[in-house]
Every structure is written in C-alpha cells, then in structure tokens.
C-alpha cells in the first residue's frame, strides 16, 4: 500500500507553495525509510568522490615527489628506420668499411610541371652535367614521378631551390660509401646504387641483417693485414707479370678470415670501372687444382691412418706409368725417399704411392672430413663448388695425392690446413668476428700427434726443402709449395701455372695460416727461369710474416735456440743409410 502524500511530504509541490512549519522528523513509518535511503545514497556518492580524489592526489604525490627525480625520457629521439638506412660494416678493430650517408636527390612530378622545356633549360643552367633533352623528355613523359639526379651537393640544392620550378622537388636518399675502397672490396662486396640492395660479398650475404640492424656488422678482417697481403701479392704479380692472384690469411684456431685478397680487384665506390675479371672472387669462388700443396693432406692422411710413419720410405727411382698418364717428379732424386724427403722435395711419385697405400675410400673419406669435397658455408654468396671425380679410380687416387684431378677453393684449402696444423680440429671458416671470450668448439679430424708431425714436416720444407724463400729471419714459418698446371683449352698447359704457397706461422704454435696463389706467373731473369710456388709465392709469404708479426704481437725468436730446434726436429734415416737430422 502506497502511503498518501500530503502537504510538505509531496515532492512535486510547486516552488511558491510554502508548507506550514513542520514538526519533528517522523520516528517511524514509510517517511523514515525514505530518509534512510537518501542518506545512504549521499554517503555512497561522497565515498566515491573521496576515493577518486584520493587516487588523483596519490598519483600527484607519486609523480612529483616519489619518482619525479628519475624523469623517464619516454620518447627518446631516434631517427626512424627508412629504406635508405643500412647498418655500417666495420673490421675487427672497428675500422669503418662501409656506411650509408644521406644525400639529396633531385626528383620531379611531371604532372605538376607547367613548361617542361623551360624547366629543363633552367635546371641544366645550374646543373651542367645533366642532358637537357633527357631532362625535358623525362619532365614531359607524363609519368607520376621521375628521378633526375642523385647526390646533389648543398650548393646545387640551393641553386635548384632558387629556380623555384613547380613540381621539382628534393628527396632524401641513402648512398653507400666504402672508405677503404678496393682494399676490402672482395669480402665487403657492393650494393645496387639505385635501391641499396646488396649485390655481392657480405653486403649480399647479410643483406637482411644489414637492413634491420642498428649496430654495425663486425667482420673478422683486419684492414692492416689486408693491406700487407695485397701489397706483397701485387709486388709478386708485377715482378712475374702474372695475370692475377688470390690470398687468404686465417686464424688457425678459430676459422676467422683476417685477410682476403683477389687480384685484380675492384673499387666498390666506382663500379663503372669494374669488370667481370675484377669482380670474380678468386679466393672463394674460384676452384683450382692446387697442386703439391695437397701433399699436406696426403701425408697427414698416411700418418694419421698409421699407413706410414716418418721413417717409412717409398721407391721414387722411376716415374709411374698408369694408363695414358705418366707421373714423374719435378725435383727428381731418382732413389728411395723417406716420408719427410717426399714432403720436402715434393715428390709426386712418393705421394702417389703413399695415397695408394691408404686407398681410395679412406682418401675420399679423409678429404671429406677436412671439408674439401663440399662447399663451405660462409657469410658471402661467392662460394665455389669443389670438383672431384665421380668415379674415384686408382689413377684419381694417385693424381689427387699431389693435387691434380680435384679442384677446390683457396678458402677450403686454408680451412683444411688450419685443421691439420692446429692440433687436428676443424673450424668452420667465417668472415664475422667472434666475440672476445668465444672459443669455437670445432670438430676433431686428426690426432694431435699427426698434427705435430705435420708441423715438423712443414718447417722442414722451409728450412731445407722447396720453400726456402718463405723463411723469415726471426720468425718460425712452415709451409708447403705448390705449382699446378692450369687446364687450358687443350688439356694441361705447361706454361700456365698456378703457383702457391701455404704458410703457417708460428709453426711451433700456429696462430695464422695463409695461402698465396699467383695466377700465370712468367719466369724472369731474377728467378732463374723458375715460376714455381717456391719462387713466386713463398717470398711474398716471408715478407707478409715479417710485416704482420709486430702488428699481431708475435715476438721474434731465435730460430737457432736449442728448445726450438728440438721442438721442430725431424729425425729420420734416409734409405741410403745416411743419417739426417733436420729441423
């Protein structure tokens, strides 16, 4: 039952109506209930407002007093990533090798240009290197957007701006500069000038990373060693009137490539002067029959498989006739030779017999373990695929023993030789710098003892064998020469040689493995008619070692000290009964 409302109790009473003075509040009944409800609502609203103001007040105190001290820069100023942005490339010491700089390009929106002929005439008056007809054609082409000129200088930009031609605008674009130019071109590569897309080298191999990364890409290269390598190789190429050459210096214990040269080279800042020959990376893309440097693997394989020891000997008195081939020695001794003698005099006959003793299957397996039968995976796309016979016959076993009938890249050679001399651990080659505290695990491919024996043999080559010109006074160089006849159009060409030297330094505790190959050297009077690896490539290695040692912090030693002589001694008896102690 709703209560009847009278007089003052009526909430809808007109304003001018004044009720009679009222008495005390009703103590009970529906009136009291109404009052209670109103009061509760009022209280609730009050509490809500108090809470809201409390929260705001607390937040104010919090912002101004509590965390006001550490003002956070919520919108730190960072330039936005644009299409033109591309990360720097630096060498292992932080030396800048590639960078994208901003420049203003001159563009036009032909539909907004009123008088193409006048505009073209005006533009050419301040930019004389533009072709007036071309500009006019572009401006009247009816296209939406044309690009007239890239890389305006600030002066040119000012002059064009002063012309005030409608529809002609500026656009910020990036262009890639390579401060070291040709010095590091073979590894760094280059980009497409139009869209800054990587076309070769690390620029292409790491294109995605360079596009997105804010930090520079650190290469394993050392610009100083790069300079030494290229300069010394260029000296040999000039002296022997050679066609070109390639060289690699690698860290023997990590697989990092610290220098790589492919000559003739190109300047990535000036691609118009580059040609097919200079763009071809001879060190990684070119695969060649490497010649006698392969005896490193043949000997290591025989020693590691215990087929031969340093005291074993082989009959090298007469050439081997097999099928239509004849295998003979260049430095023929025509007698029985021990394993160290076969290595130091680079006997083809001895090496072939050694490989036959090991057998085709194990030879193939061993070369495969050293990564010589598969293309290496590195950060640049210019990687050559090794070539080797599908059917591995006896004659293949023999010729591969001294580096013919198998083509590999210099990168593979350096990687494999590093494993042979560093204690027997194969490391993946890389063009990126390892972090300072990172020591790659690697894969063991031969025993420590074999590795030590091989170091002694490689020292022997430089001390008394075919690689004497690689000796660097004060430094311990070991290595192996190689002279391969290149396959011409009519089979092997005797005059076209690839003369190489693989050097290890310091040989008693290898840190660097380097390979220098000179392509088609011509013998000169100074070399007494010789153009072999020992005459052409070995002297470069000697000079490279002497120049790089102070830079990489390898102190000179006394080669004649007893400790070193003992550490590198090879003790063997020649089959003729002569006792030979060499080191």
């Amino acid at each position: 039952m709703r209560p009847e409302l009278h007089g003052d109790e009526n909430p809808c009473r007109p304003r001018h109506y004044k009720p009679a003075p009222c008495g005390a509040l009703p103590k009970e009944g529906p009136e009291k209930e109404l009052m209670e409800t109103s009061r509760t609502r009022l209280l609730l609203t009050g509490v809500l407002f108090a809470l809201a103001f409390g929260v705001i007040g607390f937040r104010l105190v919090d912002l101004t007093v509590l965390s006001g001290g550490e003002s956070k820069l919520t919108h730190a100023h960072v330039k936005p990533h644009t299409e033109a942005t591309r990360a720097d490339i630096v060498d292992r010491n932080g030396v800048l090798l590639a960078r994208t700089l901003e420049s203003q390009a001159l563009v036009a929106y032909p539909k907004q240009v009123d008088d193409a002929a006048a505009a073209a005439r005006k533009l050419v008056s301040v930019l004389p290197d533009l072709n007036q007809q071309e500009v006019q054609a572009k401006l009247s082409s009816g296209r939406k957007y044309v690009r007239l000129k890239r890389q305006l200088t600030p002066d040119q930009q000012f002059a064009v701006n002063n012309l005030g031609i409608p529809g002609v605008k500026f656009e910020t674009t990036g262009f890639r500069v390579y401060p070291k130019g040709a010095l590091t071109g073979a590894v760094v590569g280059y980009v497409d000038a139009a869209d800054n897309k990587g076309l070769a080298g690390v620029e292409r191999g790491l294109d995605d990373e360079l596009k997105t990364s804010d930090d520079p890409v650190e290469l394993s290269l050392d610009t100083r060693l790069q300079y030494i390598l290229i300069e010394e190789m260029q000296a040999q190429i000039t002296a022997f009137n050679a066609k070109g050459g390639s060289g690699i210096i690698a860290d023997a214990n990590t697989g990092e490539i610290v220098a790589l040269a492919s000559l003739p080279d190109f300047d990535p800042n000036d691609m118009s002067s580059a040609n097919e020959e200079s763009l071809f990376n001879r060190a990684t893309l070119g695969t060649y029959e490497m010649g006698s440097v392969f005896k490193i693997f043949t000997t290591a394989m025989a020693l590691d498989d215990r087929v031969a020891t340093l005291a074993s000997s082989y009959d090298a008195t007469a050439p081997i006739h097999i099928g239509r081939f004849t295998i003979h020695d260049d430095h023929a001794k025509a007698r029985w030779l021990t394993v160290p003698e076969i290595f130091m005099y680079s006997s083809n006959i001895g090496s072939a017999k050694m490989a036959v003793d090991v057998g085709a299957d194990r030879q193939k397996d061993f070369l495969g373990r050293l990564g010589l039968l598969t293309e290496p995976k590195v950060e640049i796309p210019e990687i050559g695929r090794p070539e080797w016979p599908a059917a591995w016959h006896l004659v293949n076993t023999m010729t591969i023993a001294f580096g013919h009938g198998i083509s590999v890249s210099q990168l593979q050679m350096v990687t494999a030789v590093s494993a042979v001399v560093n204690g027997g651990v194969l490391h993946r080659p890389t063009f990126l710098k390892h972090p300072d505290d990172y020591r790659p695990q690697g894969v063991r491919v031969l025993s420590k003892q074999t590795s030590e024996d091989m170091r002694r043999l490689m020292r022997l080559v430089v001390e008394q064998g075919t690689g004497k010109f690689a000796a660097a006074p004060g430094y311990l160089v070991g290595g192996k020469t190689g002279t391969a006849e290149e396959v011409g159009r009519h089979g092997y060409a005797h005059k076209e040689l690839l003369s190489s030297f693989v050097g290890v330094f310091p040989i008693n505790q290898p840190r660097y493995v380097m390979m220098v190959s000179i392509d088609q050297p011509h013998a000169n009077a100074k070399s007494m008619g010789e153009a072999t690896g020992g005459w052409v490539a070995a002297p470069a290695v000697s000079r490279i070692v002497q120049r790089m040692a102070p830079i990489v912090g390898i102190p000179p030693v006394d080669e004649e000290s007893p400790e070193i002589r003992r550490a590198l001694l090879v003790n063997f008896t020649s089959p003729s009964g002569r006792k030979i102690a060499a080191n």
Partner: protein
Amino acid sequence: MSMFRLATWGWLSVVVIAGFATYEVKYQVAQVDDELGRVNRSIDADRDQLRVLSAEWSYLNQPARLDQLRQRYLTLAPVTRTQLGSLDQIPFRAGEAPAGASTPAAQASARPPIRLPGGPDLVSAKPGAAR
C-alpha cells in the same frame, strides 16, 4: 558569518593561484618542447655531420695513403724484428741489482751477453753511451 566569508575568499584565491600556475607551467612546457625539437634537430644534423666526417676520416686513413704520407714527411719505418725484444733481454747496470735479487730480470743480468735475433749485442753496449 565572517568565518564563512574568510574561507570562501581563501579558497577563491587558491583557485586563482592554481589556475595561473597551471597556465604558467603549460606555457613553459610548450617553450621547453620547442627547445627540445630544436635541440633534437641540431643533434640530428650533428650526427649526420659526424657520420660523414668519420667516413671521411676512415677514407683518409687508407693504409696506402698513410704509407705515402709517411714516406714523404716522416723518417719512420715499420717496426722490424731487430727493434723488438722482451724485458728480460735488458740487463741491469752493474751494481744496480734490484732489491728482489731473485726476480727473473735480475737473474738475466747475471747471464752471459744475450743477442737479440739479428740485433746488436745489448750487454756490451754501455747503457747511456749512445746518447
């Protein structure tokens, strides 16, 4: 009644002061924001300049160029092995043995003359005589 008036005036002045303070702060913030924009643009310009200059620095420091400049202006040459040695190859002067006489360096002074590989005989050369 006068109490009520006083409180009203008090609050009213607080409101006016707060309003003015808010306006003042907002105005300052706008100014600082302009300043920030200006500084940021100048930082951008400086950064671009730095990028260009450091690229040019790297370009000017090409080893081949440095080598040419060295040959033209300096009498210096790259370090060779004869200029390198270790501390224990340096003898102490006679009668100048250090306090810890058992250090390797001190023992070295008692050794016979040591030859640097290919270098001069250090012990026979009187220290200071060359000056």
